[in-house]
């Protein structure tokens, strides 16, 4: 998706490649779906608030169409076959999300290019990660609250 956005934005002369990389970085750290953030950014630079709204609406429309059509389809054709497809997809998505957890953890908890194992572990991040996990899993703390508290802890310890 990001590479597709890059193609569109750079080809049309809306941003330079360098600018685009900055936009991606910023979109990843600001709240909201990354694609929506990027579209808003590019749209705003190009045509102000109205451009931002148009670009955002643009990325939402396909989602809308695909999801509503799929739900409609499923309500008509609830069969053994579609159920089997879903069994496979559900299991696959579980693996997919697990892979996202692992790649994020390896980015955040380990320093790249450290000389040895002990020095490569980002202990502060490990502390936040493990205490967040225990808080949500064991003590059923609201994940939203965990995010807020982690932001505060981040400001204090990093």
């Amino acid at each position, binding site marked *: *998706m990001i590479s597709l956005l890059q193609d569109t934005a750079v080809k049309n002369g809306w941003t330079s490649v360098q600018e685009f990389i900055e936009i991606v970085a*910023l979109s*990843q*750290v*600001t*709240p*909201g*779906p*990354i694609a*929506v*953030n990027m579209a*808003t950014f590019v749209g*705003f630079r190009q045509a102000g*608030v109205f451009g*931002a709204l148009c670009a*955002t609406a643009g*990325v939402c429309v396909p*989602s*809308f169409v*695909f*999801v*509503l059509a799929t*739900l409609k389809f499923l309500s008509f054709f609830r069969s053994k076959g579609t159920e*089997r497809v*879903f*069994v*496979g997809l*559900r*299991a*696959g*998505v579980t*693996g*997919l999300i*697990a*892979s*996202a*957890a*692992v790649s*994020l*953890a390896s*980015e*955040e*908890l380990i320093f790249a290019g450290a000389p040895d194992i002990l020095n490569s572990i980002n202990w502060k*991040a*490990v502390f*936040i*990660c*493990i205490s*967040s*996990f225990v808080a*949500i*899993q064991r003590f059923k703390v609201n*994940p*939203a609250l965990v*995010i807020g508290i*982690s932001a*505060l802890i*981040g*400001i204090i310890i*990093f």
Partner: protein
Amino acid sequence: MREKLKLLITIYISFLKIGGLTIGGGYAMISIIQKEAVDNRHWLTDEEMTNFITIGQSLPGVVGINTATAVGKKTAGTFGAVAAALGMITPSIIIILIISLRFSQAREIVLLQKAFAGVRAAVAALIANAVIRIAKTAVKDVFGIALALFCFICVVFFDIMPPYVLAVCAVTSAVAPVLINFLHKKS
């Protein structure tokens, strides 16, 4: 009519919260959406939530918007879908517009970076939590474990794009019973 309007507003506000707390893409949102839609609001069961997350991840489009649309549609029809999607994008628009207007206030940016470093470490935990919860309804037998592992390995070690891996899972799962049946009859 009033009831319906009230429900739509509740959906909008719920997804406003979810959108505002989604940091680092669609995966971070899963734990929060599970908590809000299943535990707090009782709009759907864990099982239905897993199905919608699956639909959201498998279809083209923005994962967050896909999932929001599905939950909104189930809860309050097409207007519910619109309310959910609008809620999801409102924080993005407001925050990006603010940043675009007054960008590069150096001190604020350093603070923000520290806050987000903390948040990203927590998001890894949030996603792990989502995996555990989804696995309970999504992975029910050895076949499921095999597919989940297959997906995980393909993406982590071989860098294969998720849509392809999911397509393989869907086809394998649909074909497997037919194949087993066929082999069974033959022997």
